[in-house]
């Protein structure tokens, strides 16, 4: 099998899907901007790994997933969580460590779980979601449902043993799983080529006889097409796919990261190509939505985000008795 398959960026796309992608991407961007400004003014605390710049990837994937499908993500996963439909109130409260959170404040930002939305695992251990995603997909396969499992991870994670074991097993068992590498070009402070021997992550799929798409993850059409084909294949018994979605992380690994390792010109170019405003311009240019329509969407997001932060702030810390619950 040729591992790397082409996805045509000029494919026709239903305008309503483009609008759907923008709707989610705008919410993620606005949420992230709010979180960062609240961190800067001391109104928010806790761990926060910004996904700014990577919004298009999960927003496009969300167009082809159902509520019953599963998503796994990592510490840098708020975009994936929002796109899968985890309610903003509970999500924010979990980030704040409050009892109203998705996990009663006991998981925290790196361990968000919300089975009701299908966001089944968030892990803080790099690469460890992939083997678990196989098991989640195996469960669907054995129960005879058509649920698809999507697991997100970074480029750095592909250098961990678990990635390789999971790719091999998924291929051998023809599992309904989609491996989504959000290649934001950096693993913490380490540039892609400094830590990765492959020219592109999809080259690694060859060794596992796995279908693979290498796409511009910031291009909504390419990203949507890759997600559609991968999810369709998984849903209809066609087995796993690796998607390498090129993107760029606009902010530091953590909010405290001074980003010295990122060339200034590279950053400036990426920011100039910011995919969320670019999609907004496209919607207007192509007459898919009017300024008023977009404004309405954004105003609704604003209200939902403000409400979520207010809810989180008002939610108390868990009762101390919770220390000893939910254990064997």
């Amino acid at each position, binding site marked *: 099998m040729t591992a790397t398959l082409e996805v045509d960026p000029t494919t026709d796309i239903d305008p309503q899907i483009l609008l759907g992608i923008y709707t989610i991407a705008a919410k993620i961007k606005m949420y992230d901007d709010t979180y960062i400004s609240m961190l800067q003014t001391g109104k928010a605390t806790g761990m926060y790994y910004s996904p700014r710049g990577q919004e298009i990837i999960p927003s496009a994937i969300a167009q082809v997933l159902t509520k019953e499908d*599963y998503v796994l993500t990592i510490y840098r996963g708020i975009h994936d969580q929002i796109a899968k439909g985890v309610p903003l109130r509970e999500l924010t409260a979990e980030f704040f460590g409050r009892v109203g*959170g*998705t*996990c*009663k*404040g*006991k*998981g*925290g930002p790196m*361990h968000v*779980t*919300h*089975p009701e939305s299908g966001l*089944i*695992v968030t*892990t803080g*251990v790099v690469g*460890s979601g*992939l*083997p*678990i*995603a*196989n*098991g*989640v*997909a*195996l*469960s*669907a396969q*054995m*129960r005879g449902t058509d649920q698809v*499992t999507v697991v997100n991870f970074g480029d750095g994670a592909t250098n961990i*043993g*678990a990635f390789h*074991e*999971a790719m*091999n*097993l998924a291929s*051998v068992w023809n599992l309904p799983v989609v491996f989504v590498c959000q290649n934001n070009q950096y693993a913490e402070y380490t540039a892609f080529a400094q830590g990765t021997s492959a020219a592109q992550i999809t080259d690694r799929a060859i060794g596992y006889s796995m279908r693979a798409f290498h796409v511009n993850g910031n291009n909504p059409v390419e990203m949507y097409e890759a997600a559609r084909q991968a999810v369709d294949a998984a849903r209809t018994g066609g087995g796993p796919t690796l998607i390498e979605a090129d993107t760029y992380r606009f902010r530091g690994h953590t909010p405290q990261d001074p980003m010295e390792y990122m060339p200034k010109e590279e950053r400036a170019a990426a920011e100039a190509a910011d995919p969320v405003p670019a999609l907004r311009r496209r919607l207007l240019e192509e007459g898919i939505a009017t300024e008023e329509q977009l404004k309405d969407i954004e105003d609704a997001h604003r209200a939902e985000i403000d409400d979520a932060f207010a809810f989180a702030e008002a939610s108390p810390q868990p009762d101390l008795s*919770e220390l000893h*619950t*939910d*254990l*064997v």
Partner: protein
Amino acid sequence: MTTQAQAPESTDDTPQERILSMVQAINEALDVGMTIDETVFELGEDIQDPAGGGFKIHKGLSTKFGLERVRPTPISEQAIMGAAVGAAIAGMRPVAEIMLMNFLAVASDQLINHAAKLRYMSGGQTKVPLVVRTTTGAGGGFGAQHSDMLEAQLTHTPGLKVVVPSTPADAKGLLLSSIFDDDPVVFVEMFMLYFTQKGHVPPGDYRVPLGKLRTAREGSDVTLVSWGRQVHDCIGVAEKLAGDGINAEVIDLRTLVPLDREGLLNAVAGTKRAVIVHEAVRRGGYGAELAATISEELFGELAGPVRRVGGAETPVPYARNLEAEYLPHAGRIEQAVRSLF
């Protein structure tokens, strides 16, 4: 006197003598588990027929249930454990085999960081009903990387249940309880017991509850606390000491987590002396935890210090004589008991 485990749930009213080995008893538990619940399935290396696993634990099962449910895997411990965790949180009851306990180290991220913690981190939303079966133990001449008893690493991790059976009946009854438990259970088998232990095993869906110890021998002068293979060593020592007028009680903890704390303290309160015997290295072993628990609760009542007998503080050596000396053998157990009188 040796008392056999009797499950309260057992409804068999025409008991017939069915003498099975430990291997046959475990095989039967897996068979029953998969028969009564279709979400139960196995995964692991080389578990398919005709071999049916390195120790024949799975003999006949893939023929009966098919390769979908008795599912051979590549040599990928992280992938096995991860798949078990994922399947467990998404509606199945996987029984994963990690061929040898030492290889838990290879899969420990999935076990320690995920299986053990998902229920807690999710605020109770996520159940992880998985069993990890594994085998180990010194005495087989397998050397340092295939013989370790690592139960203390597991008991030190909140969120895992840890079971170590010592008889065929318990192996079956505890394994079925583990399969239908909603939490991750590490089920530790000692391969020195696989073929040497034979005994009556109740047929059908026989369960032994987790968290209830078994009195393997009643006695009034000292309590020997043990699990797994060492229960049998303790019984041997107790029989010998009986000739010298020391009447030793032997308790088999069966499950280390959950611990039958009350049963343990009652037993020691009755004899006022305790010797804890386990195969693992003594330093930092689970015996230290038990000794501390007994000392904290019964300090004023004890007739002497709580003694511990464990493996030598070395990796398991290969040479036969060294390996035998490594083990907490009868001589060392006897010496520890006599030091209390």
